[in-house]
C-alpha cells in the first residue's frame, strides 16, 4: 500500500510521483480535513463511553446480588455488541428519521421535534457517535465486570466498613483495580474510532449530508472504488496507519508510565 501511494496510474501506465498524492490530499481534497476532523471528534466519545461502561459495570458488580439477575443485566448490556453493525445501522436509520420513533416519542412527551438526526449537518456526527457508543460500550462493561470479579472482595468490604460512598468506592477502589483493563479497552476504542467506524458511517449516512460525517476509512473506500483512484486511496490509508500508530505508541508510553507510578 505504501508503495502504491507513491505512484499515480494513468490510462496507459503507472508513474512514480513521490509525495504528490499526499500533497493532493492535504492541499486540494475538500474531504480530507473534514474526514480527519470527524475521526478526531469521534475520539471525544471515548470518555463518555468509558464513564458509561464504568458506572454500569460497577452498578451491576456492586448492586446486583442475585446471580441470575446479574446474568440477565450482563446479557442485556452485551447484546448490542453481538448485533451486526449493518443491522444496528439500518434500525437506527429508521429510528432517527425525522418521522421516526425517536421524534414520535419526544412528541408524545410534548417536545415537538422533527429533526432528521442523520440528515442534518448539525446533528449527524453526534448521532453516529451515539450509535457507536450504544453498541460498543457493552464490551467495556463485560471486560470491567470480569476484572472486578477477580479483584479481592476484601477491598470492597473494607471500603464499605470504612463508610465509603458508592462514588468513593468506584473512584478509589474499583478504578485502580481496573487500570490495565481500562488502558486496554481505551486502546481498542482508539483503533475503533479511527479504523473500524466505516460500517457505521456507511450504513447510517454514507458520509453525508455533504461531508458532515465522512471519516478517513470512508474516503479510502470511495477513492479506491467509486472514484477509481487506488493511489490516492493508498496515500490516505498510509496516513491513517501512521495516525493510529502514533496513538498506539503514545498510549503504550502512557500506560508504562502509569504502571511505573502505581508500583
Amino acid at each position: 500500500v505504501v508503495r502504491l501511494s507513491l505512484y499515480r496510474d494513468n490510462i496507459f501506465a503507472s508513474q512514480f510521483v513521490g509525495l504528490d498524492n499526499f500533497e493532493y490530499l492535504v492541499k486540494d481534497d475538500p474531504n480530507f480535513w473534514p474526514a480527519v476532523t470527524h475521526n478526531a471528534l469521534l475520539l471525544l466519545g471515548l470518555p463518555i463511553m468509558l464513564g458509561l461502561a464504568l458506572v454500569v459495570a460497577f452498578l451491576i458488580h456492586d448492586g446486583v446480588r442475585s446471580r441470575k439477575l446479574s446474568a440477565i443485566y450482563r446479557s442485556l448490556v452485551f447484546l448490542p455488541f453481538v448485533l451486526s453493525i449493518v443491522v444496528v445501522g439500518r434500525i437506527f436509520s429508521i429510528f432517527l428519521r425525522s418521522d421516526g420513533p425517536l421524534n414520535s416519542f419526544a412528541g408524545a412527551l410534548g417536545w415537538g421535534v422533527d429533526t432528521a438526526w442523520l440528515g442534518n449537518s448539525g446533528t449527524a456526527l453526534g448521532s453516529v457517535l451515539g450509535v457507536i457508543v450504544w453498541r460498543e460500550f457493552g464490551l467495556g462493561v463485560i471486560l470491567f465486570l470480569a476484572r472486578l470479579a477477580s479483584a479481592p472482595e476484601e477491598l470492597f468490604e473494607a471500603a464499605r466498613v470504612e463508610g465509603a460512598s458508592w462514588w468513593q468506592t468506584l473512584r478509589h477502589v474499583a478504578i485502580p483495580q481496573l487500570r490495565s483493563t481500562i488502558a486496554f479497552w481505551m486502546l481498542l476504542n482508539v483503533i475503533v474510532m479511527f479504523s473500524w467506524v466505516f460500517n457505521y458511517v456507511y450504513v447510517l449516512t454514507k458520509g453525508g449530508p455533504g461531508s458532515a460525517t465522512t471519516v478517513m476509512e470512508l474516503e479510502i473506500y470511495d477513492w479506491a472504488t467509486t472514484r477509481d483512484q487506488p493511489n490516492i486511496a493508498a496515500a490516505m490509508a498510509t496516513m491513517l496507519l501512521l495516525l493510529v500508530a502514533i496513538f498506539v505508541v503514545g498510549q503504550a508510553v502512557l500506560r508504562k508510565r502509569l504502571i511505573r507510578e502505581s508500583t
Partner: protein
Amino acid sequence: VVRRLHVPRRLEGQRRAPQRLRPKSETKHWLESKFTSYDGKIWASGVSGDGAAILYNKDHFRKAGLDPDNPPSTWADLVDATKKLKAAGFIPFSIGVKDGFAGVVLMNFVVPQQAGGSPANLLKDAVSGEVSWTDPRLANLWERLEELKGAGAFNKNATSLEYFEGKELFDAKKASMTFTGAITFAINSVNELGEDKAGIMAAPDLEDKKGGFLPGMPLSQVITPYTKDKEAAAALLTWLHQPRAQEIMYRLSDGVMIPVDDRFNFDQVEKPWLKKVYDQVIDAMKRDIPYADGIVPFDVLGEGPMKATTLTFSDGLAPAKAAQMCQASADNWRKLNPDLIELYKKWAV
C-alpha cells in the same frame, strides 16, 4: 475513458475484443450502438434499453382536479399541479436525498431542454472544462429544484430517505409524483399499480424550450479482459440481440426490459402506454438524450450534484453555491485525470 465509468481497469490488450467478436452484419441492427462506441469501435452490447421518467398517481390527480390522461407538459403546469396536489392534501413529489442521487435524476428533466435537445455535448463540455457548471443552462437545475422546494413539493422526511426509499413512497401511494432514474422501475410501478392508477409523464417544456422526451440509454454488457471464453461471451451477447431473445426478455419481464434491436417487432407491444414509452426511449437514443449519469463520470456527480442535492435539503444550500460545488467537483476530476480529458472529449455520444 470508459474505465472511470465503472468498467474494470486494464482493458489494454483486450480493448478490441468486443468489436472483433461481433460482426457488423449483427451490430448494424443495434439501436443503441452509438452509446457503446468509442473511436468508431463498439465496446459493449446494450441488450435492453433504460431511461428516466416522472411517475404520477392518477387517483391523486383526479382528486386534485387534474386531468389524469393529460399530465403536465410544461414546467409552469408542473408547478401548478404541485400546488393543487398539495392543496388537496397529497405530498406532490416523493424524494429521498440522503444519497443525493435524486438530483442527478432531476437533472435529466431540466438539462436536455436547456441544452437545446441533447444534453450530451453540454455535459461533456462541463466535465472537460469548456463550459462552467455555473453556466445558466446547467445552473438552472438548482433554481428549478429551489422552486419546487418553495412550492412545498416534497415530503418532509426527504433528508432521512435514500433515493429508492423516496420512490417507494410513490409506490405506497403516499405521494402523487416521483422522479425515477430508471424507466424499468417506472414500468414496473405502472404494472404493479395498474395503468388506470399510475402513469408515466415525459420531461416538461421549460418555457420555450421543448421537452416531451424520456431520456434513454442502453443497459450495457462488456466482455472483460478476465473473461475466460470470450468467443462464448460474444456469442451470448449476440444471441441476446436476436429477435427471439429480445421477445423472450420483453415477455418474461412484463415489458420492463426494453428491446433495442430493429429486428424486434414492436407491433407486438400490446399496451398503448408501454408502446409510447418504448417509442420515447428509442427516440431519445436516436436524438442523443441519454441520462446524465451515462455521460458525467460518477466521481464528478458524487462530489458535485449529488452532494449539492443533499445539502440543498439539509442545509438550505443556495442554487449558486450548488452550481459552484459542481464546478469544483469537475475541476478536481480534471486535476486528477489529465490523461482522460482528451479521450473523454472524443467519446462518441
